[in-house]
């Protein structure tokens, strides 16, 4: 035990030395040392994977490291409720997720409000999609809708969590198609897709990313994108089929309250530059993500719009009056 402690000490001291030296090197240009990137979820999820992909390009652009950390708990609430306690110098940024940051604080106290998060850039989303097994009798979305019309509530769809992106998608879909399904929440997308593969549910509310990961076993009936996803040219969008659904799980980054405007702008520019890199674009697309750019100056409008959409659904879910 003693050996490990002394090792830890040595490592700690050397880290402190190195960071002190690099701080002295250049203080004028941001960033002049490592930036901490806190993911309010556990490792291995999509927030983590997309952050890991950004890491390399962040270093290419700035010459500094983007250090990914995790602060899981309460579906993101543990991290977001502590964001504004962190130092507001731009060297701590935190993953920000829609619809979580809008739906979580609705109607209850989870330690943060949607407005508490200073989002500076939103960079991609995992589009909602309905997935079935390869051998499913549902060949098209209409097949599924017809089954749900014949026996309301008999069609079961798994998804990740309650009041989550999947739950919201199911509620909106029921409204638009005028049908009733049974939504069964699971702990995370992994468990939801396991239930689909095991045949415990007939369909799953997932994302294009899930389909990309399990291409040999599942197919999608429709995806909630504006245009067909390049990875799945044969899968229609909900819009094509007459249902006005575009959305999914959006991901971006936020900084603590009081971070200087120019630092936020610089961060926004860096991440926009990453989004423009063709290699990054290809890597993200192969995993099933869809890139988008919401820089700092467009953030207020984007958030207001999203808020309106989700508030309507939240009313339907009974989250708020």
């Amino acid at each position, binding site marked *: 035990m*003693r050996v490990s402690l002394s090792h830890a000490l040595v490592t700690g001291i050397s880290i402190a030395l190195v960071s002190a030296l690099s701080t002295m090197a250049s203080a004028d240009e941001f960033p002049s040392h490592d930036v901490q990137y806190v993911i309010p979820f556990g490792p291995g999820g999509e927030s983590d994977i997309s952050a890991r992909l950004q890491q390399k390009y962040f270093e290419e652009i700035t010459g500094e490291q983007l250090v990914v950390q995790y*602060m899981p708990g309460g579906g993101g609430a543990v991290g977001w*409720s502590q964001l504004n306690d962190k130092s507001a110098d731009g060297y701590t940024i935190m993953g920000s997720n829609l619809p979580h940051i809008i739906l979580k604080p609705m109607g209850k106290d989870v330690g943060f409000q949607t407005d508490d998060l200073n989002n500076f850039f939103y960079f991609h989303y995992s589009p909602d999609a309905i997935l079935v097994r390869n051998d499913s009798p549902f060949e098209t979305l209409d097949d599924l809708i017809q089954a749900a019309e014949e026996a309301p509530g*008999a069609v079961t769809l798994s998804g990740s969590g309650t009041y989550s992106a999947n739950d919201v998608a199911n509620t909106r879909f029921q409204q638009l198609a005028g049908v009733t399904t049974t939504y069964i929440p699971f702990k995370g997308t992994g468990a939801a897709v396991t239930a689909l593969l095991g045949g415990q549910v007939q369909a799953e509310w997932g994302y294009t990313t899930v389909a990309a990961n*399990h291409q*040999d076993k599942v197919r999608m009936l429709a995806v909630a994108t504006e245009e067909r996803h390049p990875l799945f040219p044969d899968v229609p969008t909900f819009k094509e089929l007459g249902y006005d659904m575009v959305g999914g799980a959006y991901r971006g980054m936020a900084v603590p309250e009081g971070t200087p405007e120019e630092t936020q702008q610089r961060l926004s520019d860096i991440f926009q530059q990453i989004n423009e890199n063709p290699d990054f674009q290809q890597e993200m697309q192969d995993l099933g993500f869809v890139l988008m750019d919401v820089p700092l100056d467009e953030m207020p409008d984007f958030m207001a719009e999203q808020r309106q959409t989700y508030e309507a659904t939240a009313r339907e879910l009974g989250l708020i009056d």
Partner: protein
Amino acid sequence: MDILTYALGALSPLNLGLALVGVAAGIIIGALPGLSATMAVAVLVPVTFGMSPESALIMLGAIYTGAIYGGSYSAILVNTPGTPSAIATTFDGFPMAKRGDGDLAVTLSTLASVTGGLVGVLALLTVAPLLAQVALSFGPVEYFWLAVFGLTLISALSEGSTLKGFMGAGFGLLLSTIGVAVVGGDTRYTFGSQVLLGGIEIVSALIGLYCIPVLIDLVATPEAHLKIEEEQRGIRLREGLGLAWLGKLNLLRSASIGTLVAILPGAGGSIASLVSYSEARRASHEPKTFGKGNPQGVLATEAANNATVGGGFIPTLVLGIPGTPPDAVILGALLVQGFRTGPELFTTNASITYTFVAGLFLATCLLLPLGLLIGRYAFKSIITIPKALLVPTIAFMTVIGTYAIRNSASDVVIMLVLGVVGWGLNRYGFRPSPIVLGLILGPIAEQGFVQGFLMGRASGSLSMTFFGSPISITIIALSVLSVFYPVIKARWAQRRGRVQGDDSHQEASS
């Protein structure tokens, strides 16, 4: 033949060196309470981006293997399971250490981990695609019954009063409901406090319930932490090998249970080691010595939890569904490196997969020399450090470790409160294991039940959903057997006693 080529690839000097460093680092991280295998792997992931995929995977597998094994040190020497899968190691490991056999316990744990690890890797190599299907046949209802079965193991595991065991488990179940519910999304029992919002983290509960009472007792009593033998006995390898040979059936059974249970995503190492522990005790001729320092108990749990390493990779690699939390991190690293899981990993990308499996194999073999070496050092430092230094060092580590789990000061507060509560309960005969078991199994049971209920309502037949599948019926039968086993066994013993009595009577009269 191909596999051999890949195995040789894993043996390049660079890869060998990486595996060596990975295993050693894993052992040290795993041995520190609170620093888990998941964290060890997550910290390493960015480092591996600069390496070739083969080297990266070998190093990740090595640090994972080392960390799962390292968890046994703190379980044996300070009664604190470094990971949930080492809970059952404390049952016999710590009593062994207390009576001065800590060195032997560490050696046994090493031998068992190597055996278990090899069985798990062998299963991954040979029957992975077949076994992966098992993972899919477990739906929400089966998980619900599995959790119920896990809870019934308390009757087998709790020393002393079974009733107190069940009360402890009930307390654990209640603790598990704190925080934001996954299914339903309600905020429960937080009393408006931010501290409780994230729920009770299992590893911080482990540290609190197991380690803090030991620290309090250390301060409260004048005796040394562990009994020290005067003579130098080295690593007692010969004695350990002898015991392992005696328990070879036990080792194989536990390793098989570990592999099988690890295939079920979410159930993982903690259930695997508890099931194999209770099976070892059931099969033993002297079940009463379990929990008081029986070497076979250490062999059973450590064989099982290292078998989960290979077992957990079966659904991860074949289906893309991580079997354990560290698997999820490694899966993420694979995706970032541009690999897809699924059948491709065994065809087009076979070289990567088999190099990885060969790397796991290598790492498991390296456990033997490295484990014996580092284990001996850990044991020696624990017994030679004066108490006045040992207590603050461990106390410091518990706080740091708990904080590091999810960078949360709330977890530290929860850990300390649970520690004091656990110490108090211990004095009244309530052991920490049932409480932790309730905490781990509570969410599995609750989610399984609610999901099964929703499924049953949609299909129109609740009873068919809950009692219809053969797997469910089997698990229910096992649970019933597990609850009534002590009664049945007592009845048998009574009858046998009577028969023997008759025999001796006849002998006497003839």
